[in-house]
């Protein structure tokens, strides 16, 4: 039984989840020019909020998901206001902001551990079998198809949003040169705050998708983010379109690597790929 179709499906499912992280990471990196290490944990936070409303309180699934996305977006915005904005005011370097985001990551991850324990929590309804679809002998569940479609929709909306709206053009200007953008009269702090809100919200969709897929665990935030960053870099940092492609390139290589080496090496393979890419093609696939 040829496993290639299943590997392709596995890669697409994993890729669509990472795409949420990569795309949103690129949006925030584009506006702020620093690697926000707490981004993955904010995504997981969104997943847990959805879990809280949906499983603990038993609310409607879609409402819980929206609340999760809004909560994560708000959290991202708050972090920008109370941490990264003062740092920008103090002309802090990208490295200082990166280390500050490591502090945020450590604290947030432990906070989630306290409220939701470190056991795995799943958002999917385990009392009933998920509808299965088989294509060429490979199976994919209904939820996974929803995640896939969602990933494409969000990516396309974001690309259009960035291309044709004032907000999008402002983010582009800020990413080129924040000082110049200020002079031209863009209220950079408002725009950056907004991109944190939108970026964190989109990342939370990824967090919720993970909740339905493999389940949520407080410590998976960083792992998810690192895949997101790798995808963003491979795809081309700063370009949403690049990040989206990078996500699938990453998961395809990681999944298909099992032909040569056993499954446990996937994590290391993903990073070997990233480093090779960085050496030979630092600008990533999509040249900006």
């Amino acid at each position, binding site marked *: 039984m040829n496993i290639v179709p299943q590997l392709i499906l596995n890669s697409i499912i994993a890729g669509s989840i990472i795409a949420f992280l990569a795309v949103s990471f690129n949006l925030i990196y584009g506006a702020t020019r620093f690697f926000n290490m707490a981004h993955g944990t904010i995504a997981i936070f969104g997943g847990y909020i959805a879990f809280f409303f949906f499983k603990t309180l038993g609310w409607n699934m879609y409402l819980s998901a929206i609340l999760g996305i809004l909560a994560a977006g708000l959290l991202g915005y708050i972090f920008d206001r109370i941490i990264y904005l003062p740092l920008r005011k103090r002309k802090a370097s990208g490295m200082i902001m990166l280390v500050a985001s490591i502090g945020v990551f450590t604290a947030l991850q432990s906070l989630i551990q306290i409220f939701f324990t470190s056991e795995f929590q799943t958002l999917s309804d385990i009392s009933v079998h998920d509808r299965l679809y088989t294509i060429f002998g490979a199976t994919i569940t209904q939820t996974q198809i929803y995640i896939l479609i969602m990933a494409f929709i969000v990516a396309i909306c974001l690309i259009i949003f960035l291309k044709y709206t004032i907000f999008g053009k402002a983010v582009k200007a800020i990413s080129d040169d924040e000082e110049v953008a200020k002079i031209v009269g863009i209220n950079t702090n408002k725009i950056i705050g907004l991109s944190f809100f939108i970026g964190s919200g989109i990342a939370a969709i990824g967090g919720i998708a993970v909740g339905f897929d*493999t389940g949520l665990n407080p410590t998976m935030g960083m792992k998810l983010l690192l895949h997101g960053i790798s995808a963003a870099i491979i795809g081309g940092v700063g370009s949403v379109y690049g990040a989206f492609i990078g996500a699938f390139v990453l998961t395809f290589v990681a999944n298909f690597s099992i032909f040569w080496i056993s499954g446990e090496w996937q994590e290391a393979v993903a990073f070997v790929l990233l480093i090779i890419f960085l050496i030979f093609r630092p600008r990533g696939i999509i040249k900006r």
Partner: protein
Amino acid sequence: MTKKIVAGVLMLAVVFVAGCSVFGTSDDAVSKPKIAVILPFTGDAGSYGEMTKQGIEIAAKEFGYAGEVIYEDSKCDPKDSVNAMTKLVSVDKVQAVIGDLCSSATRASYPIAEQYKVVLVSPASTNPDISKDGGYMFRTIPSDSLQGAFGAKLVYDKGYRNLAVLYSNEDYGIGFNTVLKENFEKLGGKVVASEGVERTATDARTQITKIKAANPDAVYFIHNGPSVAAGILRQMSELGLKAFIVGSEGLRGEAILKGAGVSAEGMYVTSVASGTSAFLEQFKTIYTNVEVGPFAAQGYDAFKAIALTIKDGAKTGEEIKEALYKVEFDGGTGHVKFDANGDVPGTYDVFVVKNGKFELVK
């Protein structure tokens, strides 16, 4: 100037510490032999630690040790288990330790026990290599070499010939997998695939895909982290893996039923005997509304074995060790007699998950 101070302080600390280490402190006389327990009470396998403790407590009361047993939490992490053992041997100066639950933790802390001539009796570590670890190592749970054979026979007798194995990538999983493979192939079956997954990883989709590709008719799933295993069981049904699934005793936790739900339905679980009817009655009288856990009877036997040797006059770790090879009694899991490797023969029960509950299969 401050550099001088720092250098001075460092030197002073070295001299002071080296000095007082030469004298050391004398060992106080051994009054009543002390027994301690190292088990996971938090973390993924925390629920198993609690259940084993219940068995130990029953025996402790029986032998008048109630309230004197020292408990240490190892979180099933070898590093914590080693830390706990180091503290018990060098500070509390115990003579016998019951523990640890996970095989990796037991094998990591055993060398320290052996060095301080302290007996280590594990109620739950089933890795086959533990038999060869050393004279001070005992177990009141049969080695996986027996469970591997039992599991292989169970699958073979059910008429399945192509077995795939998914095992958690640590002592317990790797040990069980090797024995299962040997026995199943000896019976004439074929192991078509064997995939490892990291103990804490929830995404085993790639491994399951490989297993599905080998189209087995039976899959043996060896894992000792119930909530993680539940996620993987869900992935098996998501990937449409149609095969007879057998779980090792690590999967007999509540978290499997809660986490996997319908995906666990119909799964068989082999598990070490949860205790003779006499023991189950005794357990029920004390813990009325609590369901007896997988290692409670083994915990009871471990404590009883040590307590019996002490009653016969064994004082030091060495004396307890010698006596344990001779001790023989009817315990929670049936007749207990340690062989030359410190192992016990074992009987296994088989459970099946029927509408969300573990049911004993006769």
